């Protein structure tokens, strides 16, 4: 099964690398957004209770989330395309194990997400990020970022397999983006003035994923933030992988 996983992952990576539109936006777009926000929202650091000295330290967590959204769309769209073109039927004709397809595919998407995460970290340090969690905080942050990417990629895989339609997967992008904006992406939850916004951000799991990543940078090893971040990422990833496995089982019907 290992060689099956490797080959499926290899295909997934090649697919992504051969479509620049799937590589460049997930890396460049979040960095541009971050640069704009860092410049434009610097004044927010003057708010009483703002937890960071620079808006860069606060905002650098967001690109990891945006990258996960792209992982979601890429994973879902690729699997939907396999359904649409009949490629999945070809795979079903082989002795390949279902798990190999899902693990390999998600693995390929994760490799691309990992490279993107490394770039964000490098850009952050180059731009003067004040990283409080020390040397071991970097790999820990990358692990959390990968868990989040896995959760969203598996969600995308579920939608792609269930619908078998690339358009449907693309249709989910705005929904996920709204979830991102209605979180503590731009301001810490206690500083959100509008009650309805603060309420949504408090019950939006995306807030805790962002705050988990952010805690490595602005706080150091914050047990509560990390427990919530890792806990939600693991729970969503597990649920999404189970859902995607079920959708794959339905889609890969064979006697």
């Amino acid at each position: 099964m290992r060689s099956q996983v490797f080959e499926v992952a290899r295909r997934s990576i090649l697919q992504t690398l051969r479509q620049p539109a799937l590589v460049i936006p997930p890396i460049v777009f979040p960095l541009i957004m971050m640069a704009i926000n860092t410049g434009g929202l610097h004044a927010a650091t003057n708010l009483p209770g703002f937890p960071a000295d620079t808006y860069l330290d606060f905002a650098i967590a967001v690109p990891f989330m945006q990258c996960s959204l792209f992982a979601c769309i890429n994973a879902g769209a690729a699997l939907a395309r396999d359904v649409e073109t009949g490629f999945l039927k070809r795979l079903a004709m082989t002795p390949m194990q279902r798990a190999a397809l899902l693990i390999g595919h998600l693995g390929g998407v994760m490799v691309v997400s990992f490279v993107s995460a490394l770039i964000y970290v490098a850009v952050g340090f180059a731009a003067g990020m004040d990283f409080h969690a020390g040397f071991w905080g970097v790999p820990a942050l990358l692990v959390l970022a990968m868990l989040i990417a896995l959760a969203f990629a598996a969600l995308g895989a579920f939608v792609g397999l269930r619908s078998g339609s690339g358009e449907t997967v693309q249709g989910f992008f705005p929904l996920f983006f709204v979830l991102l904006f209605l979180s503590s992406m731009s301001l810490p939850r206690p500083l959100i003035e509008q009650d309805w916004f603060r309420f949504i951000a408090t019950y939006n799991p995306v807030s805790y994923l962002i705050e988990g990543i952010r805690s490595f940078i602005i706080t150091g090893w914050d047990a509560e933030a990390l427990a919530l971040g890792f806990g939600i990422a693991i729970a969503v990833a597990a649920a999404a992988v189970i859902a995607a496995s079920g959708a794959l089982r339905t889609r890969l019907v064979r006697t």
Partner: protein
Amino acid sequence: MTILPNGIEVEDLAREFKGGVRAVDGIDLTVEPGEIYGFLGPNGAGKSTTVLMLTTLLPPSSGTARVAGHDIVREGPEVRRAIGAALQEAALDPLLTGREHMRLQTTLQGVPKAERGTRGDALLERVGLMEAADRKVRGYSGGMKRRLDLALALVHHPRILFLDEPTTGLDPQSRADMWQEVARLAHEDGVTVFLTTQYLEEADVLADRIAIIDHGTIVARGTPDELKAEIGRPTLEVEPAVREELEAVTGVLARFGTPVTARPGATAVRLHGNVDQLADVVRALDGENLTVTDFRLHAPTLDDVFLAKTGRKLEGGEPAAEPEAVSA
């Protein structure tokens, strides 16, 4: 049911979809090892549904089938190990090269690592894609995609090959190349081929035996010659050199067959016997000093068979072959 290790035995196989539509409605057929079995029918007749069931990708609603000696419902993995399939659309990844497809397929089919490269290259060479092996599939022509699809179906040396409309949309040269390769697989390598097609000519040229399916049921089966013989004898159409001799020529032809409608200026009969009568007809016309400018033999075609069995022409089929012209 006799178990054919490289064959296919189907008994009362049916598949019903939502809404009660019976795409396949209780078919029986037997495919002998090593033969090319043509499964002929128009779009929506039930060909692809049959293939999906026989390749274990769609459970039947009722009936049984054994492929390579294995039950398609209870022994799916064993069936899949024994078969290769190129389904209706060439299911390829446009972003991968031909060689990368072979690498993926050999791995997923469990070909030992040391053999993957050589086996993939050998198959690419066999289907004439070696030069294009490192090009992305999105740049391939329709014929190249079909040939790669065929090569992918062969990586694990299947004993039975399912080809679902393998030449649909191909130009005549690509179609001829595909026919040659399929014939070679059956006749040289002993692979049993189950071929669905909506092209009458394809079934006629390639298949050892044919079944015609329409509305989910098999309406005719046999060798192409048997099927043609079943529906009628050849027709002979003759045009005299001198129009005034039309009646005399008609009289001569009437000795050899039953008069049938002919084009203006010509006369025609459905021969009592077969084409062996032609020499006698020529001698009889010569004996009466009658000269002719056109002498045409219309052999029955599978199109005639399809028309006779279903009451309509095969949609999407090739136009009937031009009648054979013989100068007298």
